[in-house]
């Protein structure tokens, strides 16, 4: 099942312990507490649930939802 922007936001909010409404698409998620452990959690979750092939480096390079969406093949 393909990822949606909404699902990405929900998963990010989940690993950060925040409300999805508080997670902006265009800001650096490091400022919201995103770290390598949480990125690895997302990489594994999306590989398992959605068959994505993004790597840690792909996500860590530009840690923002709008940057991730094309890498994850997500649409709004």
């Amino acid at each position, binding site marked *: 099942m393909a990822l949606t922007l909404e699902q990405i936001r929900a998963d990010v909010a989940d690993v950060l312990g925040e409300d999805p409404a508080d997670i902006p698409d265009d800001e650096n998620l*490091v400022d919201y507490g995103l*770290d*390598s*452990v*949480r990125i690895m959690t997302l990489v594994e979750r999306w590989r398992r649930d959605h068959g994505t092939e993004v790597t*840690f480096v792909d996500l*860590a390079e530009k840690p923002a939802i709008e940057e991730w969406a094309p890498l994850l093949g997500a649409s709004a």
Partner: protein
Amino acid sequence: MTTTALERPVSGSGPDRRLAPEGLPLTAAQSAVWHARTPGPGSPAWATAEYLDIRGELDPELFAQALYRVAREADTLGVRIADTPAGPRQLPVDIPPPGHGFPLHTADLRAERDPMGAAHARMRADLAVPFDLARGPLFGHGLLRVGEQRWLWSQRVHHAVLDGYGHSLLARRTADVYTALVAGTDPGPGPFGRLAALVEEDAAYRGSAAHDRDREHWLRHAADDDAPTLAGRTAPPSGTALRSTAHLGTEETARLRELAASVRATWPDVLFAAQALYLSRATGSERVTLGLPMMGRMGSVALRIPGMVMNVLPLRFTVTPDTTFAELAHQADLGIRAARRHQRHRPAEPVRAPQVNVMPFDYGLTFAGAPSTAHNLSGGPAADLTVSVYDRADGTGLRVDHDANPALYDARELAAHQRRFVDLLARLADGDPHRPLAGLGIATDEERARVLTEFNDTAVALPPTTLIGPVEARAARTPGAPALVHGDLTLTYGELNARASRLARHLAGLGVRPGARAAVALGLSVRETVAVLAVLKAGGALTGPDDPAAVCVVTDAATSRTLPDVLVVDLDDPAVTAAVAGQPPVDPGRALTPHHGAYSAGSTGSTSGTLVPHATLDGGLRWLSDRCGLTAGDRVLRHAEAGSEASLRELLWPLREGATVVLPENGDLARTVRERGVTTVRCDRSQLAALGGSSLRRVVCEGDAPSREAVDAFHRALPDVALHLVYGAGEAAGAAHHRCEPGERGPVPLGRPAWNTRLYVLDAALQPCPPGVTGELYVAADRPAHGHGAAGEHLVGDPFGPPGGRMYRTGTPARWTADGRLERPAPTTPASADAAAEAGRTALPEAP
């Protein structure tokens, strides 16, 4: 390059991406290594290294080709570092191909008896060879065959050019290139970013507003200068770290993750919180700092650059007995989030606190189908202690490496710290994270049983005796033996007992009897000695002359005039001496039991102190005799201030054993010892140096333990004299014994607990400290309380003894040795500025 390799259809050796000849300046991270002082950057300690254990077929020629290609793809590796007029720069070096000087050490160890052992010896030997910074290159490889289907590939790189994340980038690319070469396909272009981008990003950051913001942040949140460490001291970082490894199984790991979820934290937060709790309990500090290694690559070009980027930041915790684990995990979460936002700024002084380093990366690389596991070999200089936690690639749980500076920890201590940390994790996972942590000690169940029960196995059934009964029995058995010597005067047991009996009968007529108190206000003398024995013979308890409960005060004419309104027995009064002389020289009748009070030290002008029973004092003397071996042939100096408990022991200890009491003739201890053939002296540590004399056989040093220097000096001056230490004063008097032996080193022991006495070393939450961990010493005794005046506020309930028991808080820091002796930790040596400044990175891999 070997001929074999040349003949292979290799698709080129890849592009050469060397730096431009003029080179590049160093980044801030590299400068920190370059400017390190102890050890300097030329030390082999700065090597970072890991090895991959590869299981399967491997073509060593193609592997060498892959290494060569990757080395040329990474321009960060092909450098040397030298001072130039423009400051230190990294300059390009030639990397020769395999067989022509490429730094690769190969060996086939299959014929060795222990191939793995031989491989580790070679890897260790490689690590001991320093890099030549000015010449380069600053990396080296090893490829060791240890089995038909097993190879160890080791990679060591100077920390000035690579960190742990960089190692992982190189390993991954090497696996990809080798796999492609074996398949005969093109490995494709190198994925690495250029060193120039790293240097550029670093320079841009240092001139940015973000840099100023970060600096402001760290000025407010700097590490505490006196942040505690488990070793309690610092030392210059060592080249090789001591390592202890443990594994957390799948189930334990799952429980840790559940614990993390239940407190809305990550499992690394839980590991930090647990280590903060452990450090706090093990050091008795409410405020602790951990070193937080940061890979420093989020959102950075450095994500694709195998270089040196990592940073270690301080992470501070406050741990009180009321703190819950949920709160601690929250502190970790908030602290790490705040640190992450300011992670690029480097502390002016490297953080020397114990580090926790969590590696969440999958390291399950395959080499043309051959699987591998990665193992860290060295993370650079070991400053104090680093706990590295790896999420194992095969999903079987966590691997925990405790790496420590061998100048500060020995293997046993390190293993104990690790065992307790893993045990603490399990108990945290079992417990309620919202309850105060007060009930959670760091000792394992086994250690708890050892320090509470095994080390305190002191129960000895003693016959119920009074202080005076054994003395009277001696007088009856050996009336002609010398009991008291003062100058040329010697009183036999028979004579001394007769004199004391006469006075006792006189005192009994005045109301001195079991349950009553009487004082003796006389200077140390034969008369005073007789008076003390007389009060005890009458059944009275000895007390001070200002105790309002005293029935009478035995004194002399001069002192009687200074005493308030009290019944005085003036031994200078002819009427009194006549009355005493008129008494028969036989023991007075009395109904004295071992439970009656014998001595009170806590009386002041308006209040009476609690009485110490006969049984307590006599039990202490029996124990002392057992430990020190006093016999009837001994002559014991009685020199402590008259009226003190020590003075009472100096009198009754020898008399209950049939030995002779010697009174000093002047202030010169050594002279009295020499002239009167004294064999035994009880003293405190301030008097040790003044002792001497050829007759001396044993010295009993009471109170606080003397210094190591004082003990060594004693052994040198008096090699044939036994030195016994009896620890404790006041309520804790006679709590422990140690016989010093020449050649002992380290802190002077307080010793092992006395009979029927339990000693506890407890942390701030009153939990028992394991051996080696300093806490506060508490004394619990089955004997009734000593009852000294100030004891009340220091008496608390004993949670480990029989119900209703009490323990006395000494205020003394102490710790158990592994074999059940107590010792006082050596005073903390102030951290040398150099050691503190240089004790930086120990961690190779880094996250979050």
